[in-house]
């Protein structure tokens, strides 16, 4: 039976180690952004810099709910946290991101678009929604071989209006595929607010129409995201089919760094700033005695310098050799 629920608060962490890990990955995501922003301001960034400020709990909490030995992640442009959860090496990530020699994409593409099959990460293409049918097919193949691989993928409040998303969700429901689709409702699609993107109350209401589980949750609460996704993973693993989870957050910066987001009313940003997913989780972790304030501070500082150092190392690498542009249009074997 398709179910729908709206909850706002998860139970206290049963596992301090889990909390520490989640906070660490969220801080990595946050400091990755800070490092990229610094690069952008220095005029050294190449291509769009898509901040995921405000989305750390979604990318980390959802990826943590998977088993990175058997499951697969199809991340989108604001899911850098998931790359870290799936064990991506920071240097490799930066080299890929900045398209330097040694990139897994040989310079043919950049940002988070890479695939690293060994780490079970399959990046996106720019065309929003195009990878959801692909993620569905990936796990369909697994099912055909009797495997229990679950795929987690993401789409925005704007991207969710792409036709392929509808086809993929219906297909996944019909075939009971172990697919979890998270709709990251961060209120804006580039400059377009929710009310110009869709007319339903909640994007997860659509789940009922597909005959799958759907829920809308507070996407700033990492433990809630984790818990909700854990349950979705369990259902998927048990053959109960896909889930559609809408996470409600706020995109705290422009679409990309070139965008001053003057179209977002300032009071909305102020209201959401009190719900910053990283800051609220830091308070909770400190309050529960899992980490001390100074531990957190030094973790943040060391993470930021790690990120900056990795960027600097990546930038020292040359651009890929021009000949790469002529290779591999087809697989030759």
């Amino acid at each position, binding site marked *: 039976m398709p179910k729908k629920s709206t909850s706002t608060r998860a139970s206290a962490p049963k596992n301090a180690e889990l909390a520490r890990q989640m906070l660490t990955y969220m801080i990595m995501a946050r400091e990755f952004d800070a490092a990229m922003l610094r690069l952008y301001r220095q005029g050294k960034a190449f291509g769009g810099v898509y901040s995921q400020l405000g989305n750390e709990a979604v990318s980390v909490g959802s990826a943590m709910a998977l088993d990175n030995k058997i499951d697969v992640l199809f991340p989108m442009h604001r899911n850098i946290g998931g790359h870290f959860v799936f064990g991506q090496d920071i240097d490799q990530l930066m080299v890929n991101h900045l398209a330097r020699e040694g990139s897994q994409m040989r310079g*043919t593409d950049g940002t988070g678009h890479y*695939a690293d099959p060994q780490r079970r990460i399959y990046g996106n293409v720019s065309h929003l929604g195009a990878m959801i049918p692909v993620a569905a097919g990936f796990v*369909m193949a697994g099912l055909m071989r009797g495997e229990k691989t679950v795929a987690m993928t993401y789409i925005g409040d704007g991207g969710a209006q792409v036709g392929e998303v509808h086809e993929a969700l219906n*297909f996944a429901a*019909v075939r009971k595929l172990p697919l979890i689709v998270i709709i990251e409702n961060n209120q804006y699609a580039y400059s377009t607010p929710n009310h110009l993107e869709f007319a339903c109350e909640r994007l997860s209401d659509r789940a009922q129409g597909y005959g799958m589980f759907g829920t809308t949750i507070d996407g700033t609460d990492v433990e809630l995201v984790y818990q909700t996704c854990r349950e979705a993973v369990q259902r998927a693993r048990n053959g109960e089919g896909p889930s559609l989870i809408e996470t409600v957050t706020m995109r705290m910066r422009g679409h990309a760094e070139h965008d001053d987001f003057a179209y977002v009313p300032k009071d909305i940003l102020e209201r959401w700033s009190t719900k910053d997913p990283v800051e609220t989780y830091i308070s909770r972790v400190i309050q529960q005695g899992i980490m001390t304030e100074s531990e957190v501070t030094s973790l943040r500082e060391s993470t930021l310098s790690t990120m900056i150092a990795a960027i600097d190392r990546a930038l020292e690498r040359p651009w890929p050799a021009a000949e790469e542009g002529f290779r591999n249009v087809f697989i030759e074997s």
Partner: protein
Amino acid sequence: MATMTYLEAIADALRLEMRRDPTVFQIGEDIGTYGGAFKLTKGMIDEFGPTRIIDAPISEAAIIGSAIGAALNGMRPVAEMQFMDFVTNGFNQLVTVAGTTAYRWSMPVPIVVRGPSGGGVGANPFHSRNSEAWFAHATGLKVVCPAFPADAKGLMTASIRDNNPVVFFEHKGLYRKIKEDVPEGEYVVPLGVARVVRPGTSVSVIAYGSAVHMALEASEALLREGIDVEVVDIRTLVPFDEETVLESVRRTHRVVVAHEAVLTAGFGGEIAARIADKAFRWLDAPVRRVAAFDAPTPFAPTLEKAVLPNAETIVSAVRDVMAF
């Protein structure tokens, strides 16, 4: 050898590859118990079951997209478009995802997207299109257009085994119209090898798909006028066997390029340009193209017959280049 129609030959290749390789599966609309709109997959669900002959919802993007995902996860899917016209609804998956994956990820995407294309059968603008040139222009996709049963079988086998995405255009007008001896059992025709279907000395007609049959018919009529036509069937647009085409042109010195698809930006323009570029010195006449009038394929037989090319339009193009 066994006598097979074009349709039977394709079905034979699919069946043999599914028996040989457990990673091959098919997905499409009504391909299971119903056996497909043209009955090409008839009976396959009985042999392979619903896990490997998948009846999908009417969702071309989900069909092609899920095939791509399955291919990234070790399978070799064959996706049927009920009519090749409907590939427009899955265009993004083919062009944006499948065609860029090798280049970006160095990962194989061994999928075949196949289905009936072409006109001349009184369908309508939405069941008659020849859209092969779109995919030849897309980068990263192989494009196959067989004209004969044996080639259809051999090229289908090669397409399934290829590690790249292949768009396989079957001409629905040929499905039951032509029969020939087809090798039994495993049979592979490599992609990217053209074939001289009829050797001749006066003029080369370079064609593929249904236009090969128009060219053969034209060559009968022209022989009575003393014009000995060489017909070259390129068989695959991507990869394109340029050398076989140039070699023919260097011998005959005159060329007509023919296809059923519309003229403007058709693959014939590419063939003509390659000839102009690389065999100019051997040409005794400008390269002429024969193709459909630039319009959707119309419904009424009078209109359809008028806009599509046929043996007569090839005959008159050949006469023109001979008279130049």
